[in-house]
Every structure is written in structure tokens, then in C-alpha cells.
């Protein structure tokens, strides 16, 4: 079992408000980790620190063989030029709460953008691969639609295909179903379930406790910028040791 992601003492403040209070985390290849916690507990910020969309104030995140955004050099962490940071970031697929599909590109255009511009694939090659991915998320039939013509669940499935098209080592999901109407949550979770079964390494920030119980190899509960409890889903979700985790779960499940 080799390591995919390792966070070391990650701290992050916005102004005087400390959002992350020194977090450590290890995720192995093939593992599915679900991060739970009440709103404002710092889950999303932590996920955004992992792919360096937010820069930690101290500590660092190691992904797939290198430290995100830095290079150890003579006892200091030297900041990397932006091109090398982007090369690191593309190994992490990111799915956003609000989809962030490119508004004026078709579904297919969204999925081929990264492979063509960043990986330098030819159009035909990129499109063939994109159609496979769209088929996998059940959106091949809408390849020429624009995002504005899709439902939230459809947009999120396209966003997943777009992230997968970069062939990332790890997939990050930032509350992927929180902006969806209740009846659309299932189709997105179904796609994610398929990815998990296929052995994709996934870190999922979510409020879907049922999904975490069923799919996660491990769950982690964050409260007030700290990791309060981590372990197998059946243990953490059914017999939490930490009293604040117990309070959070009883509220979330009621």
C-alpha cells in the first residue's frame, strides 16, 4: 500500500480566523476517503489546500512524489514557478460544488479542453477519449449541449468526466452534491460509486453520510479546523468515540 497524498501540519488562516489548525493526513493509492463535518469546519479549505488552490500558511502537502508548490532545497522549501505548480495540480482531478464548467464550451468542448491545451493531444484523439468518458458518466448523448442547457446533476457528471480526462492520480470532490436538487443527487453518487469500485483514489468532502458509510474505506470527521476522528466508516459513523463527533452525527442523521 503506497502513499498517494500526505498532508503535514497544514495550517491556514483567513485574516485572524484560523480555519485549519495543523492537519496531518495520509491517503493510500486506491483508497476512498470521505471527509465529513459541520458547515464551516474547514473541510473544503483543507481539500483546496491539497491541490494548492489555497496556499497553506504553514505545513505542506505531498502528492504523488513531490511537495505541492515547493521544492526542498538547502533546508528551505523553495516556491516553484507557476508552470511547475500547474504540472503538479493536473495530477489531482477536482470536482467543484458549483461545477465550474466552462460556460461557452459545449459538453465535449469542456472535456477535451485540458487534454488538448495542457497534454497536447490531437483533437481526434482527445475527442475519442472524451466520448468514452462521457459514456461512462452517461452524458455521451449530450456532447454538443452547452452547460446552461443541462440540469445540475448532468453538469456535475460532465465535470467529473472533464477531471478524469486529465488522467489524474487522485480525484478530489468538494461537496459534489450540495448544490443539487435532492432527486439529482443519486445520479452523481452513482457515477462516484462506479469510480470507487474501479479503484480510483478519491478524497470526498461530503454531507452524504449514507454514501460515506457505503463507499468510503475510511472516513474523517473535521470540527473547527481539527481532525476529531478518523477510521473505518462503520466504527466512526456508528460508535464515534469523540463526544463532539457524536453530537454532529446525531444532528446530521436526524
Amino acid at each position: 500500500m503506497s502513499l498517494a497524498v500526505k498532508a503535514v501540519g497544514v495550517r491556514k488562516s483567513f485574516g485572524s480566523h484560523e480555519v485549519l489548525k495543523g492537519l496531518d493526513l495520509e491517503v493510500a493509492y486506491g483508497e476512498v476517503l470521505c471527509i465529513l463535518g459541520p458547515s464551516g469546519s474547514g473541510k473544503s479549505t483543507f481539500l483546496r489546500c491539497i491541490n494548492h488552490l489555497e496556499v497553506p500558511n504553514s505545513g505542506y502537502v505531498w502528492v504523488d512524489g513531490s511537495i505541492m508548490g515547493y521544492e526542498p532545497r538547502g533546508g528551505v522549501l523553495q516556491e516553484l514557478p507557476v508552470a511547475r505548480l500547474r504540472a503538479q495540480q493536473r495530477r489531482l482531478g477536482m470536482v467543484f460544488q458549483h461545477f465550474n464548467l466552462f460556460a461557452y464550451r459545449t459538453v465535449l468542448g469542456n472535456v477535451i479542453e485540458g487534454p488538448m491545451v495542457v497534454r497536447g493531444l490531437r483533437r481526434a484523439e482527445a475527442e475519442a477519449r472524451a466520448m468514452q468518458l462521457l459514456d461512462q458518466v452517461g452524458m455521451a448523448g449530450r456532447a454538443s449541449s452547452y452547460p446552461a442547457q443541462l440540469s445540475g446533476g448532468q453538469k456535475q457528471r460532465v465535470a467529473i468526466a472533464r477531471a478524469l480526462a486529465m488522467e489524474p492520480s487522485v480525484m478530489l470532490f468538494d461537496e459534489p452534491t450540495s448544490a443539487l436538487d435532492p432527486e439529482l443527487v443519486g445520479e452523481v453518487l452513482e457515477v462516484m460509486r462506479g469510480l470507487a469500485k474501479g479503484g480510483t483514489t478519491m478524497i470526498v468532502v461530503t454531507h452524504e453520510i449514507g454514501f460515506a458509510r457505503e463507499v468510503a474505506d475510511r472516513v474523517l470527521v473535521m470540527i473547527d479546523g481539527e481532525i476529531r476522528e478518523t477510521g473505518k466508516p462503520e466504527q466512526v459513523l456508528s460508535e464515534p468515540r469523540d463526544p463532539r463527533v457524536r453530537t454532529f452525527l446525531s444532528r446530521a442523521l436526524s
Partner: protein
Amino acid sequence: MSTLQNPSPAPSPHFPDLPRADTPKRQLAHPGRWISAVIGLALLALLVRAFAMGQIRWDVVGQFLTARVIIVGFGWTLLISACALALGVVLGFAFGIMRTAANPTLRLAAWLYVWIFRGTPVLLQLLIWFNIGLVFPRLYIPGLIDERMVDVITPFVAAVLGLGVNEGSYLTEVVRGGIGSVDRGQVEAAHTLGMTPGQTMRRIVLPQTLRLILPALGNSAVGMLKFSSLAATIAMGEMLNAAQRIYFINGAVIELLFVCAIWYLAGTTMLSIGQFYLERHFGRGAAGSEPRKPWFRMRPRRAAV
């Protein structure tokens, strides 16, 4: 409310005399619209009558409308406007992108450009460009150019530089605002795909910025067509200048000014139509994007919700 609780299709017993479902409906009469139309037409007729009876020789207007000098002048007007607008757009995008750069030197340089050229009158700038030879008698770039400034800065070049550089300072602010209104999530999505700042700007941010600022660019184009008349003051033979030279001789001042007005209106109308189709073309893919109807087809607009 009682009908809501009562799913039965039969009329509620509390309202025994409700009309049938297929009762015909009659639209509101809107007498105000008819009255205002009549008043408007009357006022318009009065205005037309006033001008028809006024001291204007309409035959002279008609005669000079297609005079060769005027047409050539309008050609210069169009050429100056197009070149100056192109220069303004290039400068606007260049400095607008610099305004959002991470490098503070670039940000300051762009700010300085806007400060100077937006902060002084465009007529003044035209005169300074036209007389720049007084400051720099020779234009000398080693190995490239060595000429007398008056030979380089012809009235045409001065007009294009003056109008274009001034317009660029306004468009810098327009572009900066446009870039700022592109959803932050779009940029983050591009970053997570590994796109560099340059790729993100070119592929994601600028195409959306262009859509956002198209109405402002249309304004610029219309404004530029009109501001090009200022070039008449630096001996550029565009339309207004041509008209002035004619009426200094024949004294038909108002007639020739009317000729210019007609051509300017024709030009700005064409630009507005072009802008409409451009915006509709770039609007595809936008939320709720059923094709808009052209205003010049005189269909009623949908009421604002």
C-alpha cells in the same frame, strides 16, 4: 381557497355562478397607447413642418448628400474611426490585462496610462499629437527610422493616434472590469486542469471577457465614428472638414451640417445593427439564450420580470 381543498371538478357550491372554462376572454383596451400615438404623430408633424418651412434649402442638402467631396470625406471618417478603434481595442486589451497582472510594475504602468490619457481632453491630445514635432523635431530609432517628425505625423496619423490612444485608456478600464467579472470558479477549474496563467487568460478568461464587454465595445465604435469629427480641427480632410470647406465658400452652412448629420446617423445605425448580430452570435451557450429579436424589426420587447 375552498376550491383548493375540494378536488371535485364540479363548481364549488359556494360559487354556483362561476363562468365555464371556455368562456372567451377580451384583452384590455390600452386607450393611453392610442392617445400617446396620436399626440406623438402630431408633434412629429409639427416638427417636420417647422423644418420644411424653415430657412433650409432642402434641394441643396439633397445635392450635396452625394457630392464627391462629402463621400470621400465620409470614407476618411470611416477609415480614421476603424483604425483608431482597432488601436484602442489593442491598447485596451494590452493595458487591461496589465491592470490585472501579478507584477506591480505592469499594474502601475497601466494605471499611469489610464491616468494620463483618460484625464485630459481628447481634443487637446489630438492637438498635441499633431504638434508633437515641436517637442521632438526628428523621429530617430537607431537602425529603423530617421525622419522629420512632421513627415511621420501626418494629420491622418495624428488623428488615429490621438483618438486611438485616448479610446484605449477607456477600454483599459472596460477590459479590467470585464476580466474581474469572469466567475472565479472558471479560473480555478482551468488551474486544476493544469493550464498556465497565459493559457487560462487566452482560452478561458478573455473569450468570456469579450462577451461581457461587447456592449461597451459597441458604444466605443459608435462614439469613435462621431469623435472622428474632432480631426477636422487638425486639417484632416474627413467629412466635417470637407463640409466646412464647402460652406466657407457657398455659405450653405446648415445644409452641409445636415448632410453630415445624415451620414453620421447612417453610419451609427449600421454599427448598431452589426453590434446586435455580433452580440447574438457570441451569446450562444449563455443561460436562457433564446435568440433575441432585433430592435429594428419593431417587435414588442418582453416585459421585464
